[in-house]
C-alpha cells in the first residue's frame, strides 16, 4: 500500500508543480534558516569540557564592596592578594590561577623576525585539571612552581614554526630575552567557549600558544595583557600593583564531588568573613563558586546576536509552516471529489490519512533535502553575519544533517495534520451527489 500511496502522492505533486514547489521551498527555507542559526547557537552554548565541567569551579569574591559592583555580582576576577592567599590555602584537589600575557618569541636564528604569541601565566595544575592533550613531554611540576622555575609549555603550531615539528622537550625557548626550558608540547588546544578566560576573551578566541609558570611571570613583572580593573589608584610600581585591590586573576579549582564543592564554598565564605573581621572589607562576605556551565551562563557567553537570530528564524519556520498548512489545505480540498469516490469504494478514513500523510511526507523529504543544501550554503555564509571567532565554530556535521532532515519531515507532517484531517472528514455521499 505504501508504495501505491507514494506513487499517488508523487503524481498529485507533479500535477501542480508550482504549488508543490512553493511548499517545498517554504519548508526548505524555514528549516535552513532555523538550522543555520541553530548551528551557531549550538556552537556557542556547548559544554567546552563535558567530561569535567561539573567538577571545575571558578571562584569570585567581592573585594570592592556592594556600592561598586552591579546587581550584587562580585567582580569577574580576583586581586593578587586574594588569589595567592586562596592558592596557598590549597583547599581543592587541584587549583590554578591564570592571567593572559603577551610574549614575543625570539628565534635562535638571528635572521628570523620575532613572533608575537598569546600566552597564559598559570600553575602546574592547569594541565591535568583541564585535560590538556600533550603531544610531547608533559606539564611542569608543582615543584617547578615552588622553585619559580623558568619552564614553558608550547603548542604544536609554535613547535612547528620553531622546531619544524621535531622533538623540542628540554630545549630552550627565548621569550623577550629570557630563557625557558620546554617541558612539553600540547596540541593547539583552545576549548570553545574558552571557559577559563571568559573575562578577557568573551569566550571565543584562538587560545594561547605559550604557557609559563605564574610565579615566574610575577617575578619578571610580566604585565597583564587582559582587562585590568581598579577601583582605586594602585600606586607606583609592580609591588603596589600586587598589593592593590585591582582584579586581574582567574582562580579555578577542581572539586570532584558536590560535598567537596560545598566545603570549598564554605571555606571561601569563611575567608571573606576573616577579611571583614580584619577590617579589610567593611561589608558582608559575597562569594560565588560556580561550575563551568553556570559560569558561562552568568557571563552571557552566547552572543545576543545568536539568540535573537535563532528566535527570529524559528518564527520564520512557524510562518513557513502556517503557509504550508494553507497550501496543503487548498491542495487536498481540491481533491474532495476524488476522496469521495475513494471513500465510496470502501477506503476507510485510516486509508485517507495514510495516503495524504505520505504525500505530505514526500514534500517533507524534498523540503528537507532543499533545506540541507540551503543550510550548507547558510553555514558557509555564517562568516558574513557573525564575527570570525564565533562563525568558524558553526559546522555542518552528521548530527546537524540528521536534525535538518528530521525537522523538515516532522514539520511537514505537523503541517499536514489538519489538512489531512479535513480530507478524511469528506462526506462521500455529498461529493458524489454534487457531481
Amino acid at each position: 500500500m505504501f508504495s501505491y500511496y507514494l506513487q499517488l502522492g508523487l503524481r498529485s505533486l507533479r500535477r501542480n508543480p508550482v504549488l508543490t514547489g512553493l511548499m517545498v521551498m517554504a519548508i526548505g527555507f524555514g528549516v535552513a534558516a532555523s538550522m543555520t542559526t541553530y548551528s551557531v547557537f549550538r556552537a556557542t552554548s556547548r559544554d567546552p569540557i563535558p567530561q569535567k565541567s561539573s567538577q571545575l569551579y571558578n571562584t569570585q569574591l567581592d573585594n570592592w564592596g556592594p556600592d561598586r559592583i552591579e546587581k550584587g555580582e562580585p567582580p569577574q576576577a580576583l586581586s593578587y592578594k586574594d588569589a595567592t592567599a586562596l592558592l596557598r590555602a590549597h583547599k581543592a584537589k587541584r587549583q590554578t590561577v591564570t592571567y593572559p600575557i603577551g610574549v614575543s618569541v625570539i628565534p635562535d636564528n638571528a635572521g628570523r623576525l620575532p613572533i608575537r604569541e598569546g600566552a597564559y601565566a598559570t600553575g602546574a595544575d592547569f594541565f591535568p585539571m583541564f585535560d590538556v592533550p600533550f603531544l610531547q613531554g608533559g606539564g611542569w611540576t608543582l615543584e617547578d612552581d615552588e622553585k619559580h622555575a623558568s619552564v614553558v609549555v608550547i603548542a604544536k603550531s609554535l613547535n612547528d614554526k620553531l622546531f619544524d615539528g621535531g622533538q623540542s622537550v628540554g630545549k630552550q625557548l627565548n621569550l623577550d630575552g629570557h630563557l625557558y626550558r620546554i617541558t612539553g608540547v600540547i596540541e593547539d588546544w583552545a576549548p570553545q567557549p574558552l571557559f577559563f578566560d571568559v573575562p578577557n576573551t568573551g569566550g571565543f578566541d584562538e587560545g594561547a600558544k605559550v604557557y609559563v609558570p605564574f610565579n615566574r611571570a610575577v617575578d619578571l613583572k610580566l604585565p597583564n595583557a587582559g582587562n585590568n580593573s581598579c577601583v582605586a589608584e594602585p600606586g607606583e610600581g609592580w609591588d603596589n600593583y600586587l598589593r592593590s585591590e585591582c582584579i586581574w586573576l582567574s582562580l579555578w579549582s577542581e572539586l570532584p564531588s558536590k560535598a567537596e564543592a560545598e566545603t570549598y564554598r564554605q571555606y571561601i565564605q569563611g575567608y571573606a568573613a576573616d577579611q571583614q573581621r580584619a577590617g579589610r572589607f567593611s561589608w558582608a562576605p559575597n562569594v560565588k563558586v560556580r561550575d563551568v556551565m553556570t559560569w558561562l551562563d552568568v557571563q552571557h557567553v552566547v552572543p545576543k546576536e545568536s539568540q535573537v537570530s535563532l528566535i527570529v528564524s524559528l518564527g520564520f519556520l512557524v510562518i513557513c509552516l502556517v503557509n504550508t498548512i494553507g497550501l496543503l489545505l487548498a491542495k487536498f480540498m481540491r481533491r474532495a471529489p476524488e476522496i469521495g469516490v475513494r471513500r465510496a469504494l470502501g477506503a476507510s478514513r485510516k486509508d485517507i490519512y495514510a495516503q495524504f500523510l505520505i504525500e505530505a511526507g514526500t514534500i517533507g523529504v524534498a523540503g528537507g533535502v532543499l533545506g540541507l543544501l540551503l543550510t550548507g550554503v547558510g553555514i558557509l555564509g555564517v562568516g558574513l553575519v557573525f564575527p570570525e571567532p564565533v562563525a568558524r565554530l558553526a559546522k555542518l556535521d552528521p548530527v546537524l544533517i540528521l536534525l535538518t532532515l528530521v525537522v523538515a519531515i516532522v514539520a511537514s507532517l505537523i503541517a499536514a495534520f489538519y489538512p489531512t484531517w479535513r480530507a478524511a472528514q469528506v462526506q462521500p455521499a455529498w461529493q458524489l451527489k454534487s457531481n
Partner: protein
Amino acid sequence: MQIKPILSALRRHKSGTILIALQIALTLAIVCNALFIVHERVDKVNRTTGLDETNLIAVSNDYVGAPEDFTPIMKTDLQTLRSLPGVVDAYVTNSYPLRQGGWSTGVQTDPDSTKQGISTALYFGDEHALKTLGVRLIAGRNFNAGEVVTVGRQQQPGTAQVIVTKALADKVFPDGNALGKVIYLAKGKPSTIIGIIEKLTTPWIQNDFVEGDYVTIMPVMFNSSFQQFLIRTQPGQQDAVFKAVPPALYASNRMRVLPEKVGIRKFEDVRRRAYDADRGMAILMSVVCGVLLAITAAGIVGLSSFWVGQRRKQIGVRRALGARRSDILSYFMTENFLIALVGVVVGVILAVGLSQWMFTHFEMKRLSLTYVAIGVVALLALGQAAVFAPALRASRVSPVEATRSV
C-alpha cells in the same frame, strides 16, 4: 460596498481565512521587529567618529625585549614614519576610535571628591595628534612639544594640560566656559583644559564604559611595549604608505612584532572589523524579511487561487445575474483586505509583545511605532498585490460557467 456577503462567505471558509490572517499576523510581528533591528544596526554602523577617516592608517606595534625606557625607540619610529614620502603626519597613542580597547577614567572637578566621576575615554598623544586625526579644534590651542611627558605602566596619568571633546566639556561644565578650567583625572593631579575639539568618539562602539562622546586627550608618551601609531597620508598615497610602513619600521629596529591581521590596517578596515557583528545582523534580518514577505505573498496567491477555482460556478452565477467584471475583482480584493486587516490587528499585538520580550531578555531597544505602521501598510499592500492576479482571473470567469455542471 458588498461587505456583508463577503463576511457570510468567509464564515464558510473559516480555516482558510484563519490561516491567511495568522500568517499575516506572524509575518508582521517578525518583519517589523527585524526591520527595526536592521534600522538600529545601520544607524550604529553609520555613526561618525569625528575624525577624518580617509587616508588614515593604524599600526599596532609590540616592542620585543624589556628596556627600562621605550620612549627613545618610540621617538625614532615617529621620525621614521613622519619622514616617509606621502606621510602628512603621525603620532603614537594607546588607542583611537573603533579600536575596541582602551582606557577610561573618571573626571572630577573637586579634588577631594570621592564620588565616581563622569567616565571619559583617555587617549594619549602629542602636538601632532590633532592634525593626524583630522579633528577640528573649536576653542583654545593645541599641545606644544614641551608639554609632552612620559608616563610609566603603573602610573595614573594626570597631565597639567588636556584637550577634551565638546561633549565632555559641556557635560562637566554645563554653563559653558570649560576652556581654562581645571579637572582631576587622577587624585591630586590638576589638569587644565587648554583646548576643546568638536567631536571624537571613544574606542568602544557599545558605550559600555563611557556614556557619550566623552574623550580626553593627554600629552603623554606611554612607556610600554605595546603602542598604536596613527599615520595620515596625502590623498592617493595611502596604498604606497601602507606598503612602505612595515619595511621602514623593521629597517629601523627589527626587535618588534606587527601582529598578523591587526598589525597594519587602513582605517576602513578598522571600521569594518569594529562593526562586523552589527553589519552581519543587518544583512541577516534583511534577508529574513525579504524571504518572509515573498513566502507570505506566495501563500496568499496559492490560497486565493484555490478559492477562485472553488467558486467558479458561483462567480459565473453572479456574472450571469449582471455583476460586472470590476465587481468580481473588487469582491476578491475586499475579501483579502478584510482578512489582512484582522491579520495586522493581531500582528500589531504580537509585534509589540515580541519586542517587549526581547527588550526584557536581550536589553534591546523597544520597537518604535513608526516601524509597526510601516509593517502594517506593507502587509496590507502585499496582500492586495498578491491577491490581484487570482482576482483578475476570477473576473475573467465567463457567465457561461453558471450553466456548467462541474
